Structure formats: C-alpha cells, structure tokens
C-alpha cells in the first residue's frame, strides 16, 4: 500500500510536469512508441501472445488486470529489449493460469518463455499451474546464450518444476519476486557459460517458501543471492553440480544477507500439496539418492561459493552443508573452496538448527569462520574437526570427491532414506521462535 501511494504520487507529479513542458519539447523529442495494450475485452490485443507477435525490439506490452489462459513464447532476437508488464496494482491482478492453457495441441508448458532473446523484462504478474515452469528465459543453445533479463515483482506458484527459471544466460536479475509450491525450485539459474570477464546475475529481495528447493542452480555461476527469505522449503538454497546440464561445475556464487530458516518441508509425506518431480540424483544399491530435507544451504559439488552474513536458523537437519558427489565419476562435482563466514546460526540460541554445519572433508579449501561463538558441527570419529571444519583460509581436504568415510556414509544414509519420508528421522527438532504471518512446517 505504501509503495502504491508513493508510486501514484510520483506518477502524478511526472504527469503534471509532462503537461507543463509538453509544448516546449513536443517538436524536439521523438515520440516513444506506444505500448501494446492487452486486455480481455476492448483492446486491440486480447491475448499476450498476439501482442508479442506484433512487437519488435524495445517494445513494451502492458497487460491490464484479468486472467489469461495461455502459454506465451517470445522467440528470437527480433524481440530484444521487450518489456512485458502487468499494469495492475499488484502482481496478482494479472494472472496467467496454466490449468487449461494449451499451445498447438499440447498443454502450455510455460507461462512466458523467452527463447534466444536478450534483455527481456517480465514484471508485475502472477502465474500458477504450468506443465513445466512459470517464467522461463533461455539462450538458443550452449554456444548462443542469452544476455541479460529482468524478472521483477513476479509471483510463481505450483509449477511442475521451476517458478522462475533461467538457463544458459549471461547476467540478469530476479528481484522482489515470490515462488511457492514448485516441484523443484522457486528460483533457478543454471547452465551458466564460463566467462573470462564474468557478468554476475542477481537474485535479490526474493521470497521462496513451500517448494522442494528455494533456490536451485545446476552448474550455476556468477550468481549473488542476497537479501532474500527462504523458509519452509525442503532445503533453502542449493547450488549444485550435475552432468545433466552443460558447463560443470557450479562455481563462484555468493549467498549473503538472507534469512534462511525452517526449511523442514517433508514433501514426501502423504498428503503433501507439493511433490518433488525428481526421481533421484543418483542411485546406490538400487535406492535413489535424494536431496536432504531440513537444510538451510546445501553446497553440492560447488567450487568457490560463499555464504556470508546470513541468518540461518530452525533447519532441523543442517544449517549449512558442503559436500562432493563421490558417485559422479567425472570428478566435477567437488567440494572446493567453499566458505561459510560471518553467518548468525540458530538465532542466538532461540531457534536452533539440527546441527549448524556439515562438511564431508572432500575437495580442498572449504572453510568456516566467525559463525558465532560455538556453532554445532557434525563430527566424525575418523577425521578431526579442525580438518573437517578449518578456519579460513585453508588447504585442508582430501583433494578428491572422496571425503571422510564416516561423513559420506552419513550423507548417503540420509539421502537414500527408504521411504524418503523417513529422512526426517535424522532431524533434531527444536522449538521455533514466532514470526508474524509465517507458520513453520515440519510438525
């Protein structure tokens, strides 16, 4: 409400100013292209797709409040710089509903997909229930990534896999957006090409709750995840390395100034409104390996990711964890040079994590510093704590994806829990603090 009134006031002032000076500048300044306006009745465009088809570079499409049942495809560089924005007072006013939306005989896969488009802006909309993802932006292929995008003030819920999904792109921003109920993650940036002069992406001031994962990024690089809230997910923030996507491994990420709490959503339990779409990352003795549930941050086979200045509490398995994938023979998914520094763990004792940190001792250079006076650690009888949890900087670690046997045995036991819902038997439950407007999951 405050934002709306401020914005309204500012717009009014701009309008008055524009009226006052209009005669003086009218002949000197070229007229900006008119936006293409979409609405259900009385507009030239009654579907978003029809406006996209009519748009060119740098165009703006404004969508009036209403429910739109379609899957929109923005394809090709002819749409570079396109803005698609809802012009309702809130994102929910412009609602893309995937439930019965169809495209060329198939269920609509994405609410809006930008394929091979640079600097696409998607703003102030809500979508739910799409067969694949909500808002999806991708490059043409590994050799032709997209360059830049903005996803702002979006809401994405109950999609098959991802709410806001970016693949094979260089630079971009997801901000002030919310994702919930997604079968993989609310926010995803993955398949990031290697760059000599990296253009970083930003995931900032976002909220993710009741997803399988809050943030996931396979082979995710040059990403700053800041000032967000990740709560009531299966796990909060999970950069990871997998061979299924190009450009292994996940490197160079920063997770800072976030609140990451209560990620104890056991979506394997009967009756869960959200199901994971994953059938397992690997398998061990015929059992699928699943992501641990109850964790704040999981750095899975990442190199050079940093978690700093976060508030991490009430995650009943681990607050933060770093480990390799010893099952992946390429050796790319290795726990190298990750750092947990200056994080506040367990809300000063008021809302404890099951254990604050887990490290499998693999890789090289992963370290822990200034995370409170006495962070709790998952210890091993076969490796001393100053080797598993060295302060920064360090050269500690086995140097390979094979770490301490006890730690990796525990990790395998948790992630192959059978049935997976019993993963919660590894939790240490603690009382939660109260946070207005949020109810913790996990019983």
């Amino acid at each position, binding site marked *: 409400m405050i934002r709306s009134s401020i914005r309204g006031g500012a717009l009014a002032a701009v309008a008055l100013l524009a009226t006052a000076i209009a005669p003086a500048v009218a002949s000197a300044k070229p007229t900006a292209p008119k936006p293409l306006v979409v609405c259900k009745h009385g507009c030239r465009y009654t579907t978003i797709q029809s406006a996209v088809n009519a748009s060119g570079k740098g165009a703006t499409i404004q969508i009036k409040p209403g429910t739109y049942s379609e899957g929109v*495809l923005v394809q090709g560089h002819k749409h570079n710089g396109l803005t698609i924005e809802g012009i309702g007072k809130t994102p929910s006013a412009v609602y893309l509903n995937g439930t019965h939306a169809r*495209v*060329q*005989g*198939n*269920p609509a*896969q*994405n609410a809006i*997909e930008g*394929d091979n488009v640079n600097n696409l802006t998607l703003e102030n909309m809500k979508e739910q229930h799409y*067969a*694949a*993802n909500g808002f*999806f932006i*991708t490059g*043409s*292929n*590994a050799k032709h990534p997209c360059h830049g995008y903005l996803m702002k003030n979006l809401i994405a819920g109950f999609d*098959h*896999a991802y709410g806001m*999904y970016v*693949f*094979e792109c260089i630079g971009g921003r997801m901000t002030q957006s919310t994702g919930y109920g997604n*079968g*993989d993650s609310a926010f995803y940036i993955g*398949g990031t090409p290697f760059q000599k002069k990296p253009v970083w992406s930003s995931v900032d001031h976002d909220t993710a709750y009741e997803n399988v994962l809050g943030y996931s990024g396979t082979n995710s690089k040059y990403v700053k995840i800041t000032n967000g809230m990740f709560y009531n997910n299966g796990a909060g923030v999970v950069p990871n390395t997998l*061979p*299924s*996507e*190009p450009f292994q491994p996940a490197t160079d990420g920063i997770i800072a100034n976030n609140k990451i709490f209560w990620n104890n959503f056991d979506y394997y339990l009967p009756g869960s409104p959200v199901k994971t*779409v*994953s*059938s397992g990352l690997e398998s061990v003795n015929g059992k699928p390996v699943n992501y641990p549930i109850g964790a704040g941050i999981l750095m899975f086979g990442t190199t050079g990711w940093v978690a700093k200045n976060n508030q991490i509490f009430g995650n009943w398995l681990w607050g933060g964890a770093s480990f390799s994938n010893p099952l992946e023979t390429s050796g790319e998914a290795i726990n190298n040079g990750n750092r947990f520094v200056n994080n506040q763990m367990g809300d000063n004792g008021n809302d404890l994590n099951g254990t604050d940190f887990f490290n499998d001792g693999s890789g090289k250079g992963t370290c822990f510093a200034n995370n409170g006076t006495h962070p709790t650690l998952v210890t091993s009888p076969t490796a001393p704590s100053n080797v598993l949890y060295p302060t920064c900087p360090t050269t500690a670690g086995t140097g390979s994806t094979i770490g301490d046997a006890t730690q990796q045995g525990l990790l395998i036991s948790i992630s192959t829990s059978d049935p997976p819902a019993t993963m919660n038997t590894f939790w240490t439950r603690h009382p939660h603090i109260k946070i207005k407007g949020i109810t913790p999951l996990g019983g």
Partner: protein
Amino acid sequence: MRVVNRCTPLAAAAALLATGAVAAPVAGAITTTRPAAAAATAAKPKAVVKKVEVADDFYSPTKLTIKVGDKVNFVWSPTNVNTHNVTLVSGPKGVSKKQFTSGDGSIDFHFERTFTVPGKYHFQCTIHPTMMNLHLTVKK
C-alpha cells in the same frame, strides 16, 4: 476449422480434393489434416509412426531408421523434471530446420513430424546437447 468439423471426414476430403486444396505433402507438415491426407494418399502404403521418448536426459532410441513417408512422434516422458526440446541440427538439403524443431517442454508434450525427404537427420536437445542426440535415417 469449425466448418470442416461439421462435415464428415469423407465429405471434407472430397470437398478439398474437388477444389484442389490438398497440396502435395510437405516435409515436416504437422499432421492435423488427417481426413484429407488419408483420402489423398489412399493408394499408398500406410505411414508408420515411430515413437521416440524424450526423457531426463536422453532420447530413446538414439538411432532410428524409417522409410520416406513415415512419421516420428516424439513423446515427452511423464516423469520428466527438466525441460527438453527436439532441434534439427543437420539434415538433408532443403529440409527446413525450423519445421523440424519443437518447442521446449517437460511433460504432457508431443511433437510429430512426417519425413518425406530421404537422408540423415541429427536431432539434439539444445538444453542437454551432450546427452540427448538422435540420429535418424530416412530411406527411400
């Protein structure tokens, strides 16, 4: 489309034939005009439809041989997490890559094409290019 739907398939086919509206088969034509096409090619052997599964993260099969006039129906697996596509990377001269390239999909998705030009076709998922490749041979 609605006008056609009110006719019986045979009547629609006859009407289209009478007006000469049925064109020669086009490589990659979407098979949505079945009644007309069926009538127009009645004397020819029935086209075979081969299924290719599009799954996380593979095509199955990865090699396939068909005859000219056969169809391939790419069917996305209901267990998929990831988004995939079918993109024609290389094919016989004169074949439109765009016409043989699907959209991006995850589940409840299929993409069917008829192959009228013999030769070798290489399809790839551009999102998973190292893991998802199909080599298709179309024989005369």
